[in-house]
């Protein structure tokens, strides 16, 4: 029948929990190496690809694809793949995008819009989708790198 010390117990439990969580968070790298598998065991989230406004289904003869750099955002990796035909972007898709919980919702909402914008702007000069600031930022970076690769 040990004496109980309720206050001491509360202080100890809080201190142990807070320092445990802070320790776990600080052990995580602040950003992973580019191209690292970011989503753990999650399958890469492929957002619905957009058809080019010029029509045409699937890849035309002579079409090439170019994949941009994988970009880390705090919710996961974004990587854009472009399909080009005759120097024009006919299709943009995200081969990787943040998924899981809230992120899936944001991705499902934002990525199709970004794809559409990329095809119509034919450049990386597109607007971020509101409510998906981080995902949009990652998308823009990856899109720019894909355009650079295609141009270079």
């Amino acid at each position, binding site marked *: *029948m040990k*004496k109980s010390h309720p206050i001491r*117990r509360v202080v100890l*439990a*809080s201190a142990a*929990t807070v320092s445990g*969580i802070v320790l*776990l*968070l600080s052990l*995580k*790298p*602040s*950003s*992973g190496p580019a191209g*690292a*598998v*970011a*989503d*753990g*065991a*999650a399958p890469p989230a492929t957002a619905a690809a957009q058809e080019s406004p010029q029509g045409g289904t699937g890849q035309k003869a002579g079409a090439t694809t170019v994949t941009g750099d994988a970009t*880390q*955002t*705090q*919710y*996961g*990796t974004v990587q854009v793949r472009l399909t080009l035909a005759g120097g024009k972007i006919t299709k943009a898709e995200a081969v990787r995008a943040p*998924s*899981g*919980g*809230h*992120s*899936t*919702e944001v991705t499902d909402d934002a990525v199709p819009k970004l794809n559409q914008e990329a095809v119509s702007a034919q450049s990386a000069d597109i607007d971020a989708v509101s*409510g998906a*600031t*981080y995902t949009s930022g990652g998308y823009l970076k990856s899109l720019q790198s894909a355009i650079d690769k295609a141009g270079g």
Partner: protein
Amino acid sequence: MSTIAGGRAARRQTMRRIRPRRSPAVPLLIAVWAGAAGVLWLWWMNTPSLADNNAKILNAGRITGLLAGYLMALVVLQMARVPALERRVGSDRVARWHAMSGRYTISLVVAHVVLTMYGYALQAGKGFGDIVGQTVDSVGQLPDLGKAAIGTGLLVLIALLSMGPVRRRIPYDAWYHVHLLTYAVVFLTFWHQLSTGNDFVVEPTAKTFWYALYGSVTALVLWYRVLTPLRLNLRHRMRVEAVIEETPGVVSVLITGRRLHRIGAEPGQFFRWRFLAPGMRFSSHPYSLSAAPRPNMLRITVKAIGDHSSALRGLRPGTRVWAEGPYGALTAQRRSRGKVLLVAGGVGITPMRALFETLPGAAGDLTLLYRANTTQDLALWDELAQIAQERGARLMYAVNSPEGERPDISADTLRRKLPDIDRHDVFMCGPPGFAQQVYEALRGAGVPARRIHHESFEM
């Protein structure tokens, strides 16, 4: 003199080789910690990197949420009346675990909500002040979050009602029935864990494990809190036989039923009793058996301290009784030595009386020390004296002096009365202050802590 004397048959039942059973508390606690480590590992494996403070806040929210979800299942499990917990770890200890882990879980839930909503607010370019607005937005946008919000509101209400000063001001029954809402909380908050929790969305194995955890807890609750009592009461069909006044303010209730020796109760254990009489139907209270179970008779002895215990005096013979149990770990199984000292404070005599009658032992092995305010308060004294005489056991009492001075129970007096006290197992039952005092005296007299067996329902 009550009708329930002589316990040779019961004593023969418990006459077996002394082999103390260890409480499974340590392996259980190891399993609980291992589970918590597994939950943290799940987070670790599914989290690649944390870009900035916003990510850190959201992930702190995830960790607290995962731990809260895990603990919520265990908090319910602790109250599922699983025999391994109730009879081997001890109902009192499990109840303390429940209270402690319940408070901790609620703190984690609150931290989880605040951190997650703050994280989402930052993500949307808002500040800490917009948490409430962000919560409303998120409830509208995310699946199952509405249910979770209702559940969390209920949980906070339950927590407020369980806090010391409030708890003391509301009747036990009201508090208990509000507490049952926790089951609704668990149900309401379960679904958002799976549908919005990152780790469960991306990791099907984790989802399966979570279903298994909550599924088995639900099964145990249904089995041990619903089906087991139902079967017990249909089988034994108990009724009040008589109510006997033992001393002023202390009554014994004799309960008849079918094949009560098959009810599985050991001396030292208790049942939760519900008397189906007007005004008593909706509350159930734990009272120890004050005699070993007989084939057709159980007995409890109760001191009138609360509404319920006072109302017992007015019970009519024939009143139907609903019992759940047996519970409690203060039984002969705890014993490790040949010699036993039983210490009772006031109405704490009830389980000690049952043990005094039935603990196996030769003449001179058993001693009972009975503390009360006055000699008039020594309930059941006549039958204790008879048992002592039959078994060659020692019976001592300690009462206040006529001036109201408390008797001296110290290491020295205990050693003087029982020179070989350090070779005894001690079973103890009484009010918390008394138990603490005796515990310290016993330790001072050289009794190892592992041989002092007591039950205390103080939180």
